[in-house]
């Protein structure tokens, strides 16, 4: 029964100057991203809501009402703005609870975690020479949280590259004092990030330093961060429970080290 009638749609919608959903003139031209069929922005958004309402969790794609092609987003506006279907519900595929918590971190006062992760130790002990293999994923998530956009890979690569170049140039100049290295790092990252992050640049650099100083995996870092702030994340904590057993041993040794030697 699937077969019949699909071609009928074209004839019934009359001319191509009307939206197939409201049969009226287009109000804010919006195109589906795969098949490029055009609808009013509101019409196709309402339809995507109806489709989403049928599923227990929001689907990442919606079938085109005209041709049944699966589409993941609507493109509209002069700037070809993309609207992902599952964004309405506030839980887009990429924007997880972890992203929400990272974004919220930017609304609290800076410096709350400096007792936990000693940034100065990081520079004094030349830890920056070692590459942090979690850094790229951390950068990407941080940028996704700040921009609330999924595709931040270019900026993440850009920042990762400049941090990397710093690490390698540092090894050639071991005579520098920790302070100047830190300053150099801050200046370089700020310069790289400023065009994108603007007012949030300096805070971003601080958060980046904290993460590097922690030497933790992303999961373990989140755990410590959230615990320290005393926030409760019902969705975050159960998942993290599996991760703690391996990662917690790092934390006490780190804070012990800090207290004894430098505080």
């Amino acid at each position, binding site marked *: *029964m*699937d077969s019949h009638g699909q071609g009928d749609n074209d004839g019934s919608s009359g001319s191509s100057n009307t939206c*197939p*959903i*409201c*049969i009226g003139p287009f109000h804010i031209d919006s195109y589906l991203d795969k098949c490029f069929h055009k609808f009013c922005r509101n019409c196709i958004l309402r*339809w995507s809501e109806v489709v989403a309402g049928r599923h227990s969790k929001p689907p990442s794609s919606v079938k085109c009402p005209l041709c049944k092609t699966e589409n993941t987003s609507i493109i509209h506006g002069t700037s070809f703005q993309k609207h992902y279907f599952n964004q309405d519900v506030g839980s887009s595929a990429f924007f997880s609870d972890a992203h929400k918590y990272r974004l919220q971190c930017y*609304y*609290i006062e800076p410096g709350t975690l400096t007792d936990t992760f000693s940034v100065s130790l990081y520079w004094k002990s030349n830890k920056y020479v070692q590459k942090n293999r979690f850094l790229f994923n951390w950068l990407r998530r941080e940028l996704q949280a700040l921009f609330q956009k999924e595709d931040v890979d270019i900026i993440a690569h850009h920042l990762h590259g400049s941090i990397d170049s710093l690490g390698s140039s540092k090894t050639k100049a071991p005579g520098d004092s920790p302070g100047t290295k830190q300053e150099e790092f801050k200046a370089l990252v700020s310069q790289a990030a400023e065009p994108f992050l603007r007012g949030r640049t300096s805070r971003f650099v601080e958060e980046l330093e904290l993460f590097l100083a922690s030497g933790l995996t992303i999961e373990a870092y989140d755990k410590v961060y959230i615990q320290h702030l005393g926030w409760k994340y019902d969705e975050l904590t159960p998942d993290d429970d599996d991760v703690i057993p391996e990662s917690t041993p790092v934390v006490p040794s780190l804070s012990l080290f800090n207290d004894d030697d430098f505080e």
Partner: protein
Amino acid sequence: MRIYRRPNHFLQNVQVVAVGSSYLVQSAAYKMQASRARLFKEYKEVQREKSADPDIQLVCDDSNIFKWTALIKGPSETPYEAGVFQLAFSVPEQYPLQPPQVRFLTKIFHPNVHFKTGEICLDILKNAWSPAWTLQSVCRAIIALMAHPEPDSPLNCDSGNLLRSGDIRGFQSMARMYTNLAAMPKKG
């Protein structure tokens, strides 16, 4: 620090709630207006192209734009040929986001139509509905269903069983008999 953190946390939630509720109010109003506006457009389209599809005659209820009836001609080379079948449309307020409810008012012997209630088993009237369908195109889909019954999802088991057992002749004579009994336009 605490004073600074809490309000922000709080504000964010409030914002989400506010956005959510205005959205709901908006969409309720939208549905009602949108369904009327669209049905009115369909009505005008039907008036304009009355002769375009001689097999379908769609009529809107005088007092209620959400109630329609249609007369469709039985497709040729089927046992429904020469019959005229009446359909009743009940359009929901969420139309076209929700499909219209359609049933046969005229008795019809067809595997996908309930013999007593006239209920129609057709995917596009259920989960395969698309807002690009119109009442007119739904009528066309029903005519197509009359010509191509789907005996594997029967609402009328007797009819479905005849077809599934390969008794085409038995099915056709039953269907033709009911067409003659119920669907023949009265003369004069």
